[in-house]
């Protein structure tokens, strides 16, 4: 019987090990954010928390100068990241649900042309067309602006396809009933379609918020002033080339703060998140 018990414990042991391996880097970052720069730089940081936590976070949040380097205050970078992530998430959802509504509920000349025009964008991630897109944004004078940071990333075939897929499952009777009640297309959209799409919207929001928050190459190119820097780009900029002295305590505090919003969204909205991920990739 005890041998059987031991076998039952193996899955738990492996999973716990996995969880620990995944959590270890975060733990070290958390510890790093509670010591002073000198202790970390000496290379003998203990594995238990130090006493500088409040100082480090307040410093990183407000100040633009560490002991050793200059950087953008985290509150500014976080604001930029929030604006970017929210604009991309909301923007993608709004334009996608409108175009999916047009494609699914109307019959008009050029419908399939438009569908394919949107569909083909599915194939090319922004990184592939990064340089020419940068050029277009530069020609439009949108460098170093929120518009340049967000609008080029808003076009999304994924969200459009997801909404279209869902709209095709809505029973014809519902549309007929609405028509019989004298509802026009926009009334139907607002009073019937939007409420029915709530789950899909929530699921997409989680995915797109994280997508926007975690962008790297695009903001790296588009933002040129410190005031426009996003937090993910900012952390790497704080590390620099690793040659010069580094405020590791502040970098670790910034890293913890930068992970907080997206991780919170995933953990708190776990159900929507898993649904959104699995649905949008189908």
């Amino acid at each position: 019987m005890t041998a059987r018990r031991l076998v039952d414990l193996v899955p738990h042991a492996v999973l716990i090990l996995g969880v620990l391996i995944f959590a270890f880097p975060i733990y070290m970052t958390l510890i790093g954010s509670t010591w002073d720069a000198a202790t970390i730089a000496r290379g003998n940081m203990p594995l238990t928390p130090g006493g500088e936590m409040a100082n480090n976070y307040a410093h990183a949040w407000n100040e633009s100068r560490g002991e050793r380097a200059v950087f953008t205050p985290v509150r500014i970078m976080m604001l930029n990241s929030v604006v970017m992530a929210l604009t991309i998430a909301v923007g993608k959802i709004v334009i996608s649900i409108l175009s999916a509504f047009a494609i699914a509920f109307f019959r008009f000349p050029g419908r399939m042309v438009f569908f394919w025009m949107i569909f083909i964008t599915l194939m090319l991630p922004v990184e592939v067309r990064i340089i020419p897109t940068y050029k277009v944004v530069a020609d439009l004078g949108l460098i170093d602006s929120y518009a340049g940071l967000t609008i080029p990333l808003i076009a999304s075939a994924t969200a459009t396809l997801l909404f279209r897929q869902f709209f095709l499952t809505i029973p014809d009777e519902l549309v007929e009933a609405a028509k019989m009640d004298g509802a026009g297309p926009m009334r139907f959209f607002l009073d019937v379609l939007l409420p029915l799409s709530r789950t899909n919207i929530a699921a997409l929001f989680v995915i797109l918020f994280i997508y926007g928050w975690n962008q790297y190459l695009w903001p790296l190119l588009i933002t040129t002033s410190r005031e426009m820097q996003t937090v993910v780009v900012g952390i790497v900029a704080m590390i620099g080339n690793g040659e010069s002295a580094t405020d590791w305590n502040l970098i670790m505090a910034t890293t913890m703060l930068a992970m907080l919003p997206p991780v919170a969204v995933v953990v708190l909205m776990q159900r929507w998140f898993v649904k959104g991920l699995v649905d949008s990739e189908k």
Partner: protein
Amino acid sequence: MQRRVVFENKWLPYLLLAPQVAITLVFFHWPAAQAIEQSMLLQDAFGLRQTFVWFENFEVVLSDPNYLGTMRVTAIFSAAVTVLSMALALLFAVLANAHIVGRGTYKTLLIWPYAVAPAVAAVLWLFIFNPEIGVLGRALNNIGLRWDYRLNDAQALFMVVAASAWKQVSYNFIFFLAGLQAIPRSLLEAAAIDGAGPVRRFWTVTFPLLSPTTFFLLVVNVVYAFFETFGVIHALTRGGPGKATETLIYRVYLDGVINNDMGSSSAQSVLLMLVVVALTAIQFRFIERKVHYA
């Protein structure tokens, strides 16, 4: 493709489509067309004049031994990231899917790394494996391993692979778990009654039934390794030491942004577009086939 009952309106559908079509045209089709045009132009040293050179930029790129080296690095890197992150994810998903206590807790504790940006994942690993200040970096040096990923090619590659895979496991885990939960219990029970042990049940029943998920993830992970890991490489190694961790997308960035060689960078972009189109086409063919026997 189309609903039976639709609304009648001459101009409303165009109005509804306008925002997405406008953004797509300006920031997608236009730059993509420019990339193709630019890839066939050669700029003089002062950037004043451009000549149309057909496929010369492609010839230059593809006959450059450095580019072939970058392709090799990308292949090794992508294969390592894909295999490592998928194998770990499958292991965790199979274990978490078994009838064990705390399945929900394990799930929550394993999916959150999805939310961590690739560049941030790189910073986490850098802090641990830095040879001077990192806990494990110092430990490796103390036992005499001469650990410094900034100088050693293999160690640099290990770092970018580890950070990239660490972040991607949670994504694969979610899909494998969803795939496992869709497998009918009765099939596994039947196999158990026939006397198949857990390992045999996995390889003869579970694994084949998971193949649509596995194949889908294969494509997604290769795309991830090709493009989204730019942040990892930029934060950790900047493609170095030498060109040991320079992937194709990093090279596009170097040539286009740092070296300002638009022709070459655009030719490389077009080559990458072809890769993605090929991968997507493979995936669609497969999904169609999946529908057949589903």
